């Protein structure tokens, strides 16, 4: 027995997924060629599992902004913004984010995880209630655990269930904060936000929407699900990340709430961590400008998402409930999922493997994410490889494929 013995079961599960060069949990990219191509095990590989929705990681202007910032401001800030001071870039990015979302206040965190950890643990205190969608991301659950509020879950994307659960606590004196996501990361489905917002208004609760996967993806201006659903005025707090559509790392929260700035002193994951380095701030500012000004990125992303979703569905794969930049294929068991994942990788296609309990059902998922930077030819190649492996492994049958004569 050692202090690590409690992880024996987890270690055995991880080992069963295969040796190091074929283990989905241990993938290493030798090189990254572009936002859609890399080299894995010496093989050129199409990247279909990066969350790089707008393909901006190699945006020339973003790279130049980063290089310039690292020359002018150095490699790191070496400290917390509260204890060691902010750089002008932190403040400017917060102003940019607030302006983009049309909000009074913005606050930047060192990761998206810390943004949720901060807001969930701090907004709802002792005697308050956090009401979470049951499919919430780990950062939301962990934020709930770090805080002192009562935590209640409602059935995924079920407004009637949310109403029932809010009704049970309607006489309790504490504040109630409902938390949902713009796009859920495993299946790519969206929250029924107009209905959630109506319930929030009726029951006098606050609403926080995590737009991590929907910023730059949904809404005419790319402001996410709240914009698309036309309920931005009902959303008290928007949380998001820089590590998806903005191609860097970090997180944020924007809000119109009076007194918002006190959170800078109250959020422990904000106070007790080093701030983002200047190079990250600079590329994020540049990518936010690109996201704001170049609507063609969203058009291409939507077309690409539809191509992949429709293509995989026509092959007979069990995909999520709606087309989105996250397209997940459900398979029956973990052994099959690992073999399928390896066959795709050997065929030059990298996707994500998601295993229960990280998945919403007890089935594993081959999770793909699409980018505006993918070409229709790359997407066709990915669909063809899925078809070939799917037939080989008996996940789909060639006779059941509904492939149109003219694509």
């Amino acid at each position, binding site marked *: 027995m050692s202090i690590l013995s409690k992880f024996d079961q987890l270690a055995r599960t991880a080992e069963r997924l295969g040796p190091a060069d074929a283990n989905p949990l241990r993938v290493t990219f030798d090189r990254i060629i572009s936002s859609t191509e890399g080299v894995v095990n010496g093989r050129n590989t199409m990247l279909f599992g990066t969350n790089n929705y707008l393909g901006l990681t190699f945006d020339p202007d973003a790279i130049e902004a980063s290089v310039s910032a690292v020359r002018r401001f150095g490699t790191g800030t070496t400290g917390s913004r509260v204890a060691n001071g902010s750089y002008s870039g932190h403040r400017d990015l917060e102003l940019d984010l607030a302006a983009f979302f049309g909000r009074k206040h913005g606050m930047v965190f060192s990761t998206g995880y810390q943004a949720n950890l901060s807001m969930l643990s701090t907004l709802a205190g002792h005697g308050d209630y956090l009401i979470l969608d049951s499919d919430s991301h780990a950062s939301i659950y962990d934020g709930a655990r770090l805080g002192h509020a009562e*935590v209640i879950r409602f059935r995924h994307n079920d407004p009637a269930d949310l109403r029932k*659960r809010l009704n049970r606590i309607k006489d309790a004196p504490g504040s109630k904060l409902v938390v949902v996501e713009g796009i859920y990361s495993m299946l790519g489905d969206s929250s029924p936000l107009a209905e959630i917002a109506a319930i929030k208004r009726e029951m006098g609760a606050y609403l926080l929407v995590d737009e991590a996967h929907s910023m730059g993806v949904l809404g005419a201006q790319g402001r996410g699900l709240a914009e698309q659903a036309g309920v931005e005025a009902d959303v008290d707090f928007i949380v998001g990340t820089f590590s998806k559509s903005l191609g860097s790392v970090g997180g944020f929260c924007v809000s119109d709430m009076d007194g918002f700035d006190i959170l800078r002193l109250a959020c422990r994951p904000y106070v007790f961590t080093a701030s983002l380095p200047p190079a990250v701030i600079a590329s994020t500012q540049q990518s936010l400008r690109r996201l704001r000004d170049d609507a063609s990125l969203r058009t291409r992303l939507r077309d690409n998402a539809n191509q992949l979703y429709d293509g995989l569905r026509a092959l007979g794969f069990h995909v999520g409930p709606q087309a989105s930049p996250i397209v997940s294929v459900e398979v029956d068991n973990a052994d099959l999922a690992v073999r399928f994942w390896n066959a795709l990788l050997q065929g030059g296609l990298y996707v994500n493997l998601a295993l229960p309990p990280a998945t919403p059902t007890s089935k594993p998922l081959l999770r793909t994410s699409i980018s505006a930077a993918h070409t229709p030819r790359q997407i066709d190649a990915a669909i063809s490889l899925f078809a070939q492996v799917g037939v080989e492994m008996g996940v789909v049958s060639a006779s059941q494929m509904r492939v149109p004569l003219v694509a």
Partner: protein
Amino acid sequence: MTSLSSDVRAQVVQALHVAVNRPVEIGGNTQIVQDLGLDSLAVMNLILAIEDTFDISIPLNRVAEIVTVDDLVQAVESLI
């Protein structure tokens, strides 16, 4: 109180049988995860169902302290 308690227990055990979905003996000392083999998804659905049966909310921090069927019955009784 005795009749209330036995009624709660019967309904909790009934919900557990639905969750396990195979013939199994369930007693007060039965451990819900270890003995019944419920995964995290099944536990979540069990808790949501029990909340609806009794029209209560069992906060997640309370759920984390529940190991046995007796623990679950006591948690429900403290909230109704």
